[in-house]
């Protein structure tokens, strides 16, 4: 069913064609009319030809007979009267008739009967002329001659009658020729007009047929062409879409040869134009077909890198489409996440185990526990509870950062006072061998920050500095202004961080080698949280470190 849009499109497609066909019909009509006019003109010209040929012949023949009549009358008058003046017409007629006879001789070939009639009339004219000449000679010879001449008039009459008959036959010849020519011309004209009429009719019929039929066909062609163009556009769009898809898409024919693949597949499986497959693709397909029932992600080594891929296959009549999705990042994140869950559980369990263990020990009724030992257990419970609180706080802040749910209350903060207070409290519980110091700037340094969050960040940095200085050493906190920013650096002389780890330590859940750092504990969130907090306060947290000789962390925040 054609939709209204289709019909409208068809109308639009037909309009110029109708105009073109209308013009064509007009041209045919004009041509046919011109042909008719031309045929008529040719007929007219033919008429002129007959006027020029048969017409004059006709007239000249009549003239000859008139001249001969004049001569005859004039000679007869002379015979009767003997008056020489009556011979005037004779002389004139003799002169003209010879001229006219000569004229007739020119055009004797237009009708087959003419030459014999012409020969006859010539001899008859010659006979009449000699008769006239003798009669005139007899009249001039005297009265006897005149009488003889008068007796011979009847003979002249019969001569003249013969001439008249012949000339009439000749005139009839010309008239017949003229009539025949006229008929022929007329029939030729009619034939022309019939031919032109038929041609015009056929042309008009063809034009009308085209007018009716062609637009339909043309519309179909238009539609086919438009559909082909739409198909081409669609496949171009599809290719463009597939080019920007991060999944590797491969179209396989029933033989398993690759027919089409997108750029991701080309790079991932090393497929070059013209290839039917590649070693990597074969291997990957085999990997997924090996246990086809399990649609989960599979590790596949591609160009020396381990990728986790999932494959989705869709069969259709001409083969199948396989979409490989690289889920390496998801797998990595999932690993990190489950690692984090395990680590977080571990970090919660450790202090919980201490609290629980201490309580269980203290509740051992049958033993007498020395007062100072009991105090140690109580102190342990207090400390480990605090440690639990800190871990939970970190988890909470991390979750808030992730859900962008962290609300900062920025205000003017005295950086020097804050550092001194933090170092003071750390000093009270530092292990032996650690020396803590604050280097004060000349003037006050006021930062624009959330004081609670900044305190959290700095406490974390100072704790880290102490934790990662297992052999003791100096931990120095410096405060100074640097342009529009205030900088707080925490420098230790501890273990330091290997160069390749220096950026990763800020990643979420990232920990230096767990068995190495377990001794100092941590959820893998401290530096991640610190950097995020500083970033959200409009500052930066950076690290400089030499492995084995300590680290320097720098918090840079806008001055108030």
């Amino acid at each position, binding site marked *: 069913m054609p939709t209204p849009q289709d019909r409208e499109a068809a109308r639009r497609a037909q309009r110029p064609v109708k105009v073109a066909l209308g013009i064509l019909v007009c041209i045919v009509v004009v041509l046919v009319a011109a042909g008719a006019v031309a045929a008529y003109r040719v007929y007219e010209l033919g008429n002129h030809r007959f006027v020029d040929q048969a017409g004059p012949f006709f007239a000249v023949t009549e003239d000859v007979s008139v001249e001969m009549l004049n001569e005859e009358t004039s000679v007869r008058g002379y015979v009767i009267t003997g008056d020489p003046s009556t011979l005037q017409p004779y002389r004139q007629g003799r002169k003209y008739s010879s001229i006219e006879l000569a004229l007739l001789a020119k055009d004797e070939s237009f009708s087959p009967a003419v030459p014999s009639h012409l020969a006859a009339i010539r001899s008859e004219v010659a006979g009449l002329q000699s008769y006239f000449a003798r009669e005139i000679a007899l009249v001039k010879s005297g009265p006897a001659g005149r009488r003889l001449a008068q007796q011979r008039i009847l003979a002249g009459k019969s001569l003249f009658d013969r001439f008249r008959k012949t000339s009439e036959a000749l005139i009839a010849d010309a008239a017949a020729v003229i009539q025949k020519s006229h008929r022929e011309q007329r029939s030729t004209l009619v034939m022309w007009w019939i031919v032109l009429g038929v041609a015009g009719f056929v042309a008009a019929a063809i034009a009308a047929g085209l007018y009716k039929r062609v637009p339909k066909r043309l519309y179909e062609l238009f539609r086919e062409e438009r559909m082909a163009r739409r198909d081409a556009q669609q496949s171009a769009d599809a290719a463009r879409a597939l080019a920007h898809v991060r999944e590797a898409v491969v179209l396989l024919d029933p033989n398993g040869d690759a027919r089409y693949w997108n750029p991701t597949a080309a790079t991932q499986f090393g497929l070059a134009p013209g290839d039917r497959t590649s070693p990597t693709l074969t291997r990957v397909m085999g990997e997924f077909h090996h246990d086809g029932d399990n649609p989960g992600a599979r590790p596949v080594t591609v160009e020396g890198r381990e990728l986790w891929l999932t494959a989705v296959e869709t069969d259709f009549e001409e083969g199948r489409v396989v979409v490989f999705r690289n889920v390496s990042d998801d797998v990595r994140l999932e690993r990190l996440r489950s690692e984090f869950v*395990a680590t977080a*559980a*571990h*970090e919660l*369990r*450790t*202090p*919980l*185990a*201490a*609290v*629980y*263990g*201490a309580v*269980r*020990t203290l509740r*051992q009724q*049958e*033993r*007498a*526990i*020395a007062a*100072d*030992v009991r105090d*140690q257990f109580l*102190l*342990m419970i207090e*400390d*480990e509870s*605090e*440690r639990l609180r800190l871990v939970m706080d970190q988890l909470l802040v991390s979750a808030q950062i992730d859900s962008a749910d962290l609300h900062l209350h920025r205000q003017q903060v005295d950086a020097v006072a804050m550092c001194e207070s933090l170092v003071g409290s*750390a000093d009270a*519980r*530092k*292990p*032996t*061998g*650690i020396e803590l110091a604050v280097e004060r700037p000349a003037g006050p340094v006021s930062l624009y920050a959330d004081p609670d969050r900044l305190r959290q960040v700095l406490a974390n940095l100072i704790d880290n500095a*102490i*934790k990662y*200085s*297992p*052999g*003791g050493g100096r931990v120095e906190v410096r405060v100074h202004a640097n342009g529009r920013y205030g900088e707080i650096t925490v420098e230790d002389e501890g273990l330091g961080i290997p160069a390749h780890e220096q950026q990763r330590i800020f990643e979420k859940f990232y920990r230096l080698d*767990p*068995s*190495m*750092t*377990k*001794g*100092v*504990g941590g959820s893998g969130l401290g530096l991640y949280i610190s950097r995020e907090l500083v970033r959200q306060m409009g500052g930066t947290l950076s690290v400089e470190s030499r492995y084995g000789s300590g680290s320097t962390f720098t918090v840079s925040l806008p001055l108030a």
Partner: protein
Amino acid sequence: MHRVSVRLKAEYISPMAVGSALFAGDDRGTNRPGEPARPRRLSLVGDEPEAAQSRELTVLLVEDDPAMRLLCTYNLEAGGFRVLAASGGREGVELAESEKPDIALLDVMLPDLGGFEVAQRLRAVPIVFLSARASDADLERGRAAGAIDYVTKPFDPVSLPERLREDLEELRKGGGAHRVWTMRFGSV
């Protein structure tokens, strides 16, 4: 009694200011070289040890967390064990070589050598892991490392001596580590 309590006090360092704090070594040698191994009571508790009926067993405790180390030491000694406490893997291996403990209680995550690595080096010493990592995979790793038992935190430290004694009892029946493990966790 007084001596022990002072030692314990020295050993417990607040985890809020965690540092080196490697105090565990100073009181480990209760048996002098050449001296016959004799039951010695280190416990600061009770006149009558719970496990008086058996000879004093030596346990190597490798635990980096001071609080946990204190708890275990206290309860194991109260349970009649002689405790060799170490805060790191290397130190633990050294202690085991010189003192030949009857059983080793190892934290899995340690600052220097990991618990599994320590277990590998302690040949012929029955291993019990002590860890806050408690997934099936963690337990399986412990089993694969040859442990006879795997104690997950949090646990009741008061019953710890009893548990170690049971483990050793089961081990004595023959069948190796596998038998004890099966007793604790069922067949794999």
